[in-house]
């Protein structure tokens, strides 16, 4: 009994003394510690849940591109210790997070808001620093009372409302990276060290604060508190300030560098449109509209994007929206007369306006172009109703 008590006491002392002064994996004296190994195993279990959730955005070309950027940011020897992998989550919310294992998850929402590769590199470099500088294990060693920590996490999730959804999917490690954030000290380190990495990789550091500014503007417009990526990190304003001060001191006078706007936008154009559809599902009409417009500005005329703009206006149904929706649907039809959804959109507008002849014609066209339409039963009912009292 006495020995058990002594062993327990020793364990507690040892656990309490476990140092948080761990060298980054980028240094030569890196030792993969036992508790870190356990943390990695747990992280892998959490990653499995996410990877099998149906939330992973599938785009092989984009995955290859993201990996290429990651390889520009960190040298090959770092990849030997941390096999970085970048995955994209189908979520329009602005977030990105890293597991200690080097698996980084970027939401479609945050990618869709970026202008160029330099901004993407800024975000990736930040997340990579969390892994290379072993912030997760440091943070866990710092937490003397795990129960209290878990309780805090639960309270935080509870107050996040809809943003807490994804947190409940993640385990403790994912929640640390994605929701509660690391300590302010670690976040600042990730910002500053990340900036050094992107400068060394040849990217334009002046793009870093622009990424944060973009996001700040959008969050203000949505009248939301800063969620996730900014949640308990240094407040966004302060972050922009830190970033600018750092550029003014460490990289004074240094301007220019790789931006790669065109390549970047080409690689993510499909994602931008898909993300706009997700924003529409969330009823974030303005953001969805902006996404569709951004897609059009990259790829030129695409009936799918015009049709999406039509859907946004039709579903929002505020003053002047029906007219705008009609214009967008007609634009889509003029670009591709056999694009079915635009005919359906027109048909629904006519149907609601009781223009039964026009409605019937558009809806019949829709069904003839899309015979397997999942909403066929509704459309057939509208067509039957149009037949009963024909007008216009």
């Amino acid at each position, binding site marked *: 009994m006495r020995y058990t008590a002594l062993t327990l006491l020793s364990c507690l002392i040892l656990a309490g003394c476990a140092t948080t002064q761990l060298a980054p994996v980028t240094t030569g004296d890196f030792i993969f510690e036992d508790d870190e190994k356990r943390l990695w195993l747990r992280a892998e279990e959490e990653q499995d*849940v996410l990877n*099998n*959730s*149906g*939330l992973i955005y599938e785009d092989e070309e984009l995955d290859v591109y993201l990996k290429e950027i990651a390889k520009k940011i960190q040298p090959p020897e770092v990849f030997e210790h941390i096999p970085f992998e970048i995955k994209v989550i189908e*979520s329009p919310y602005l977030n990105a997070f890293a597991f200690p294992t080097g698996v980084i998850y970027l939401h479609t929402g945050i990618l869709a808001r970026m202008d160029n590769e330099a901004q993407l590199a800024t975000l990736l470099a930040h997340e990579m620093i969390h892994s290379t500088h072993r912030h997760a294990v440091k943070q866990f060693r710092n937490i003397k009372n795990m129960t209290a920590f878990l309780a805090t996490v639960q309270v935080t999730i509870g107050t996040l409302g*809809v943003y807490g*959804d*994804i947190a*409940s*999917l993640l385990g403790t490690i994912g929640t640390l990276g994605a929701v509660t954030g690391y300590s302010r000290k670690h976040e600042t380190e990730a910002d500053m060290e990340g900036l050094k990495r992107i400068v060394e990789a040849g990217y334009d550091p002046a793009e870093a604060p622009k990424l944060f500014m973009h996001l700040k503007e959008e969050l203000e417009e949505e009248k939301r508190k800063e969620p996730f990526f900014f949640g308990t990190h240094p407040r966004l304003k302060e972050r922009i300030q830190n970033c600018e001060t750092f550029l003014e001191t460490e990289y004074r006078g240094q301007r220019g560098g790789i931006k790669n706007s065109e390549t970047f936008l080409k690689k993510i154009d499909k994602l931008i449109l898909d993300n706009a559809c997700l924003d529409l*599902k*969330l*009823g*974030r009409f303005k953001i969805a509209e902006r996404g569709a417009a951004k897609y059009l500005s990259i790829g030129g005329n695409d009936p799918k994007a015009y049709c999406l703009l039509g859907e946004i206006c039709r*579903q929002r*149904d505020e003053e002047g929206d029906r007219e705008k929706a009609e214009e967008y649907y007609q634009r889509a039809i003029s670009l591709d007369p056999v694009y079915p959804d635009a005919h359906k959109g027109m048909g*629904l507008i006519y*149907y*609601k306006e009781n223009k039964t002849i026009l409605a019937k014609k558009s809806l019949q066209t829709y069904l003839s172009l899309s015979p397997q339409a*999942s*909403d066929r*039963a*509704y459309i057939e*009912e*509208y067509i039957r109703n149009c037949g009963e009292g024909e007008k216009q």
Partner: protein
Amino acid sequence: MKRYLLIVLLFVVGCAAWVKVGGLYKSKPHNFSVELPSGWMRLNTRDRLYITRDGVLLQNIMIERLNIEKPLEHTKKKFSKDMLPQEVAEVVLDNISADQTVLNFEVVENIPARISGFPGFKVVFTYKNKDGLKLKSISYGFVTNEWFYGIRYTAAHRYYFDKDLKTFERVFESFKLIKIA
């Protein structure tokens, strides 16, 4: 202030009890009546009624009445009086699929339906919860005046769903509005 409100709420929720049901159930404040199966348990919340036999996580029938102005949980979209049943269904589905704890969400069927004489929708969908359990749901709904009414049956896809499907159909058939404006 918020803390006290939370404590009061916790007490209220703590007091809400499951009661055994069976036979005609009338909810005047929610303006509907329905025949509930014998031996099931019922729980009422402000906008919803839940009944279950094997436990809510395995199978339940939920009847809800929501004011169309009331914000939904996962989408900013709202119901409106002049929506077509298909549009009402879309809002319901968007609200469910935007919940990020609803995984591998798939719509199996989405068709027009009559609910207590009102034009509405019937959607069948499957999804997995965060523990990997596959669930199947049938959801009926319609909007009349200021209100959205929904009747939904959800159960574990294997074994439980088929077991109580007929019971749900009887509950659905018996659903009526008490006063029609």
